[in-house]
């Protein structure tokens, strides 16, 4: 299995662990991740202005590059995934946006949403299969009570993201089971952590992070995993008395014995 891979800026700076463990685990699983050449920042925030195209251009460049290689595009950072997936959807379904973007980019071949965008977790679930991962685990994380923190970027809007049931997701819990640990289901696993408010209103960001942490602790979690660098930062830095929190790729690498 060979895929185009879009790491994103944060994975080259603050979130290096998410990237490096992700690559190691993929290699072990027999998945080839080919990093796109000359990729640019995804835009970081999906623009909600209906007529905005400038901030979508870099995502389209990445999508078109994957299309040229005839590969699905794998993302790992929640925010990158959110932006690229939704921009791809716009290119597929919104004629005016696609037309203006194509007019501006003047690609060799017009891009109209042909690339499949897969989050790393979706790749694990749908391409590798959690059952196969279970078989390849050499170091099962037995007895560890892990709370999956989804955040908001991966799940919503569910119609576009098509990631999982946004109110009762199971993909990360299934992942936790696959690596031999015990998932802890808690109410706030799919609520916003407040990370985006951290510059504006740190107190509010703290309050929201604390709710997530308290909810996970209440249900008996001992550690947490996430796919989002911003969530990890916010929970860790702004949350009081945060549980140990890791990127999911780190635990995957650990279970596969490549950490």
């Amino acid at each position, binding site marked *: 299995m060979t895929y185009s891979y879009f790491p994103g800026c944060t994975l080259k700076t603050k979130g290096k662990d998410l990237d490096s463990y992700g690559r190691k685990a993929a290699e072990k699983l027999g998945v080839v991740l080919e990093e796109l050449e000359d990729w640019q920042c995804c835009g970081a925030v999906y623009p909600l202005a209906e007529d905005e195209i400038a901030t979508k251009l870099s995502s389209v460049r990445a999508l078109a590059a994957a299309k040229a290689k005839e590969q699905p595009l794998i993302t790992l950072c929640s925010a990158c995934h959110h932006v690229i997936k939704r921009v791809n959807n716009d290119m597929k379904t919104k004629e005016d946006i696609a037309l203006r973007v194509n007019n501006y980019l003047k690609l060799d071949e017009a891009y109209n949403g042909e690339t499949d965008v897969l989050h790393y977790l979706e790749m694990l679930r749908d391409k590798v299969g959690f059952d196969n991962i279970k078989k390849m685990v050499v170091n099962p994380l037995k007895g560890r009570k892990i709370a999956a923190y989804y955040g908001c970027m991966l799940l919503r809007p*569910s*119609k576009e993201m098509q990631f999982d049931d946004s109110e*009762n997701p199971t993909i990360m819990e299934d992942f936790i089971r696959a690596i031999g640990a015990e998932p802890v289901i808690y*109410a706030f696993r799919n609520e916003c952590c407040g990370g985006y408010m951290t510059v504006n209103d740190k107190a509010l960001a703290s309050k929201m992070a604390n709710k997530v942490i308290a*909810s996970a602790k*209440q249900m008996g979690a001992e550690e947490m995993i996430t796919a989002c660098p911003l969530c990890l930062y916010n929970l860790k830095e702004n949350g009081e008395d945060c549980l140990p929190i890791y990127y999911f790729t780190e635990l995957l690498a650990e279970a596969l014995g490549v950490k």
Partner: protein
Amino acid sequence: MQRIGVFVCWCGSNIAATVDVDAVVEAVKNEPGVCFAKNYQYMCSEAGQALIKDAIKEHNLTGIVVCSCSPRMHEATFRKTAEQAGLNPYMVEIANIREHCSWIHKDMKEATEKAVILARAAIAKVNLNAPLQAGESAVTKRALVIGGGIAGLQSAIDIADAGYPVDIVEKSPTIGGKMAQLDKTFPTLDCAACILTPKMVEAAQHPNITLYTYSEVEEVKGFVGNFNVKIKKKARFVDSTKCTGCAVCTAKCPSRKGGNEFNCNLDTRGAVYIPFAQAVPNVATIDTERCIHFKTGKCGICQKVCSAGAIDFEQKDEFIEEKYGAIVVATGFEILDVTKFDEFQYTKHPDVVTSLELERIMNAAGPTKGTLLRMSNKEHPHDIVFIQCVGSRGNTCRDKTYCSKICCMYTAKHAMLIREKYPDVNVHVFYIDVRTPGKNFDEFYRRAVEQYNVDYIKGMVGKVWEKENGRLAVQGVDLISNRRIMLETDMVVLAAAIQPSKGVRNIATMLTASIDTNDFLTEAHPKLRPVESPTAGVFLSGVCQGPKDIPETVSQAGAAAVKVVGLLAKDKLVTNPCTATPNELMCNGCSSCARVCPYGAIDYVEKEVNDHGKREVRRLATVNSALCQGCGACTVACPSGAMDLKGFSNRQIMAEVDAICR
């Protein structure tokens, strides 16, 4: 050569605002055969019809074209008009320049051009029309009602009271439907069972009513006045002629793990069961998926304890074939599956229940014997939060777009009943709008607010979660004070949307009755024919047509019954003369037409033909015109073009196409 009159209707501004009616008249004046053309504001009005009649007489017309609305709306009207003026009604053609033209176009030039083309096609067809004579068919004076809830029961009783035999087919082991599960009914707060069970008994004992419970409609053939229906009576594995309903078997059955559907799975029942004490018929049924005997071949305790010897493990499904003149669909509804709304924790916490589950909790025959208890710990609750519009009036993929209509009233009822019986319990209701139109309905809701101090909060709930103390936290928004609110509660009740029963698609397909995007059955006209399906002889009763409460359901059920009685009272129905006829010289007896005929109207005979002087016996198709409904399937299936449809002959259709392409 025909002498054709063309009548262009304005339909007020419906057509005239988009189509230049004067231009249409000018354009068609010189079409072959046309000797009169005129437009008028309302052609269907008395004055408009008089205009047509006068023109027929004055200009000696032999055919007319009315450019107006859909033939489904007024074809019958204009045929009658023509007949009154001495013209054969089948010499009338409708060019639909409203639904097919003015309503879907904005540009007047384009729309006018299209209207002219549609008119030309109709003129080309009338040029080839020939007078047709309608035949007659007999009416089977027996009605079928599909569904034994309050809608079906009321329709059946009303038809039976008028003197016609009625069969009710109900898929579950008892009649009664959803209403049997309800505790009290709004706005009078009388108990559902007290008003429903007498109706159930009345239906069961009525000399004109036959009940087929635990039965399903398997196949429907035929047409209005002459439906042939196959009913599958599923094996109960209990001989209903012997079973006395003593319920000893149901008490002794050792397989007790499965949920009890009647109590919304809040408790369990045996594999052999009677849904509830007042079930009609009061006969046990064995659920083979849960029965130990059917799974392992052992057990058989029910057989041992049954003093009547009614248990029969060898019983087989029975099939009944019966003829009906009319069919009433009363298939009812089910509650939307709320597992997709897990922000309310329905799948995670037993104290989050649907309103129907609460109905069972409040019911004396329910799992808690009518005591309001939390399902998690069987303790008395002190606070209850109701959330309205769960799955209704939404625009996401998990929501229904419509208002479920009954929830505002039953939530007010629940709130009031709880405050009446347990004044210590605080009740909060989150709502988007409170919709209580209906006789004594708004007064009822206001009583809940003003007299019983129910706390109504305008706004929705975003999240429910369990607190450390085991109670539930509810986070919502109060839109009137524009603030976020947090409540701690013991129970959350979800007013889940209602949707048509799952099986309705299958039934609609068998009946060729149309359904809408939400699977509600479509009425023949939303205002003027609300209890009839567009398929002749099929009538609609209750929620299968759209959300409605009990009073409305009963009214509609009665209305459907009147329509059925009106049909059954006729001895003969006028049949459609537009039936298929084979050209014997072209038919090669291949059976292609018989295979596609949905009405079984085509048969074969060995017949001598004279083919240009050559005499021989050939196998030829014949059409039973009493059965043929003129659908035209055979005309396109015939490889040699031997089959033709009167009134829609291949020549006529080709003439229309030529006129359009000219």
